[in-house]
């Protein structure tokens, strides 16, 4: 996998959400939230249940359209994203409760992730020879690298519907990686995993970030994990941003502690 070419240099802001407010009917999911994601960093979004974390990701890749606020990506201002555009401009995403193509094998799921990169038209597809097959093979190579990277050789041909949850999450990450994204959004990548699986997942996330230079924004419940992984942390509570700093600072932040205790109590 080659590094996704981005016209934003490392360290500079890759994506920023500005004063986002999102309402469903009467309910306010996000209230005037702003933060930025810098190129090459691992950005964590945390907060108690119902804090609006997932809604935030949905806004970023255009599932939800905020009533107010804007998204700045690659420096250009967008009143609203839409999923297709997000995908094409290099944003990949995994879901809290896996959103794989259950009827398809691991291999096909990952190959599907290459959809954007495959160009051969109907004619060649019909023949499935010459250029079409060459293209297919070229992308198969990339996908195999990902399979090797995620150590899922053994389940290549298994329909993902039959896989245990932990592996499904891994495959979903694989599908996202197959898009060679510039920005990778991970929605609770470690829920429902045992310790070992969590460690693997952490390793993968770090390697993705370090090897492919992929910028990562992740939601996670497990505070420990977040603190180890992320370079900066945004904390949401009831749709508001209550903190935004490096892990250690956030840990000390009274507002954050309050919010979490509030949940606990």
């Amino acid at each position, binding site marked *: 996998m080659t590094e996704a070419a981005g016209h934003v240099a490392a360290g500079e802001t890759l994506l920023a959400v500005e004063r986002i407010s999102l309402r*469903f009917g009467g309910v306010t999911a996000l209230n005037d939230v702003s933060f930025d994601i810098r190129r090459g960093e691992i950005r964590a979004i945390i907060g108690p249940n119902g804090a609006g974390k*997932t809604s935030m990701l*949905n806004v970023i890749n255009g*599932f939800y359209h905020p009533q107010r606020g804007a998204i700045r990506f690659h420096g250009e201002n967008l009143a609203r994203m839409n999923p297709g555009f997000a995908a094409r401009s290099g944003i990949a995403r995994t*879901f809290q409760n896996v*959103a794989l193509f259950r009827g398809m094998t691991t291999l096909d799921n990952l190959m599907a992730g290459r959809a954007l990169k495959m160009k051969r038209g109907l004619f060649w597809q019909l023949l499935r020879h010459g250029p079409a097959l060459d293209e297919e093979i070229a992308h198969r190579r990339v996908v195999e690298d990902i399979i090797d990277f995620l150590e899922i050789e053994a389940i290549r041909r298994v329909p993902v519907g039959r896989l245990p949850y932990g592996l499904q999450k891994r495959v979903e990450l694989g599908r996202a990686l197959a898009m060679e994204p510039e920005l990778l959004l991970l929605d609770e990548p470690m829920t429902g995993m045992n310790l070992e699986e969590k460690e693997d997942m952490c390793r993968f996330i770090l390697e993705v970030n370090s090897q492919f230079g992929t910028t990562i924004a992740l939601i996670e419940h497990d505070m420990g994990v977040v603190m180890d992984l992320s370079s900066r942390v945004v904390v949401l509570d009831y749709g508001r941003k209550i903190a935004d700093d490096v892990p250690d600072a956030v840990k000390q932040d009274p507002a954050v502690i309050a919010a979490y205790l509030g949940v606990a109590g």
Partner: protein
Amino acid sequence: MHFLYLVFIDPFVQMGMAPDLLAQTLWEGLVSGVLYALIALGFVLIYKASGVFNFAQGIMVVFAALTLVGLYAAGVPALLALALTVAVMFVLAVAIERLVLRPLVNRPDIILFMATFGLTYVLVGMGELVFGGDTKQMIAKQLYLPSGAIDLAMLGGRVTLQKLDIAAAIIASVMVAALAVVFQYTRIGRALRAVADSHRAALSVGISLNQIWVIVWFAAGIVALATGIMWGARSEVSFALEVVALKALPVLILGGFTSIPGAIVGGLIVGLSEKLFELYWGPLMGGGTEAWFAYVVALIVLLFRPHGLFGEVIIERI
């Protein structure tokens, strides 16, 4: 130019020139609308309670009518035949619940939907096997349904109202009212709505899903019987009805799959509009537009309201 005239001006001119004809047409449309509504009602009942999109509703109408007529032809006195038919519909409901729904519980909706296709075939086959494929006359008189017509002199002409149609309208509205009451105020009604919301919820309330299903399918069967009688009395009893019954689909699109009032309104809209269109615009395109008009209307509606006129929009949670 002339074409535009024919399309946009001429029809209205005609309406103005022959209001009685217009009134007559409206009435006709209203009545067939009522019948559509009745079929749609059957759909809605079942859909609400079991989430099943019952494709067989149309054929249940035919089947009910056939049974009634068939029994009578076999020498059973009319009213007894009616009672027996009701019994048959109950047996049918039980059978369906046992043989089709129960084994398929918790399967994707689409599967259940397809199953009702199969059901359709079985019923058609059975109906034809037992009562023969030929068309029959509905025993309207023997069931004390009024015949003849009332001629109203109005709008500078005469508008004919078939007594039967009036009866149909009345019976329909009574039935709808009854159902509405049942749904709103009785325990079983609340149960039904609970099931509609979520099977698990219903179970937690401690209602047997199976009973519910039998009940709704039986109810739908009764509705089908009524529809069959009315329809049969107006035209005759044949499997052509099966295709006509498909009209319930556009009706549901307009009315929404879960709303009884919606079904009624939708039915009336479809009935009226297609009759009017056929009368005033049909000739422009060689007539026979009733065959598709309703669907095209539904299609157009869908383009603007993907969940129908009254259907509630579901927010997809991700």
